[in-house]
């Protein structure tokens, strides 16, 4: 069965870069979101078993999405994909429940490693 996956980034090119880097053999049902609110809506609609989440976005940023996901107790696997790669940013998102932190520009291998580690693929 196709896994519901949501890619969240305000930049269209950035979403494309993430989508391109997903393992080609992975059977997914893809949803795209441009900001945190759309990301949460996708979660509530059951479209985000796995979420690839940018941090810096208008309307609602990635940190706020992570906080809200914890509050609403979603079991979404959240992989943060960020240009801000400081160790403290990484620590902060892990504390907020993200399973992994991948730096931009994203590489297929980085995504595959995380998906394997969590037995998602």
């Amino acid at each position: 069965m196709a896994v519901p996956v949501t890619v969240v980034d305000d930049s269209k090119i950035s979403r494309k870069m993430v989508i391109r880097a997903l393992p080609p053999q992975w059977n997914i049902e893809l949803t795209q979101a441009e900001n945190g609110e759309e990301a949460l809506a996708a979660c509530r609609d059951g479209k985000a078993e796995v979420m690839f989440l940018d941090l810096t976005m208008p309307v609602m940023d990635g940190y706020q999405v992570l906080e809200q996901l914890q509050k609403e107790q979603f079991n979404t696997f959240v992989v943060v994909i960020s240009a801000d790669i400081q160790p403290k940013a990484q620590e902060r998102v892990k504390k907020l429940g993200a399973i992994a932190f991948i730096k931009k520009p994203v590489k297929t291998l980085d995504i595959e490693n995380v998906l394997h580690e969590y037995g998602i693929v």
Partner: protein
Amino acid sequence: MYCTNTVSFKSVNKTITMSIPPYTEDQNDALQEVVNIAMGQAGDSLARILGNFVALSVPRIRLVTVEDVIKTVTDMVDNNAKISAVRQAFSNSLRGEAIVVFAQAGADDLADLMGYDTDLDRSAEQELLLEVGNLLVGAVITGISETLKTDLNFSAPSLMAERTPLDQVLVPEQLSWSHALLMEVNFTVESRDFNCHLLMFMAEEAIDTLRSILDEFIDRIQE
């Protein structure tokens, strides 16, 4: 771009108003993302040497004319007080100049943040500004070059201003372009009152070159 022999922008006859076609939505989106990535790497380098979390602003990208460059930069830097600044030229596929502007308080705090004696003499302080400027510019140029897969080099840093009002640092009469693409990000260590801005300017010729480099980048992702 300024009166120096290290930077040689194509000189533009300022009496001719050049019109620069704006970038498309996709080109702007790609540029914003590339600058985000590069500035993120610069922020990480800075955080490592300062041993502190560095807050990064969302990069601002503007097309400026020589007439409004001072107002734009003053608004961005939000500091009409005295600043110190380090500049470096970059060249190869894209030519331009990067300037790191330190609010004076930031320059004073830098030594302390880096664990040096806070009573630095003038030459030690200059060295510190050059080192940090070079670190930021190096990271950002490398980030842009790697992301866009285009070759860029950068010159050694030079001190452009010390404790000088911003409007004396950027003098329109000394600029050799009429339009430039300006990219700006602000790095802040909140707990320590440290703040600096990285500004990158690319003049007319580079604006057009960048257009085609961005198109190639977008094409690679569409494939």
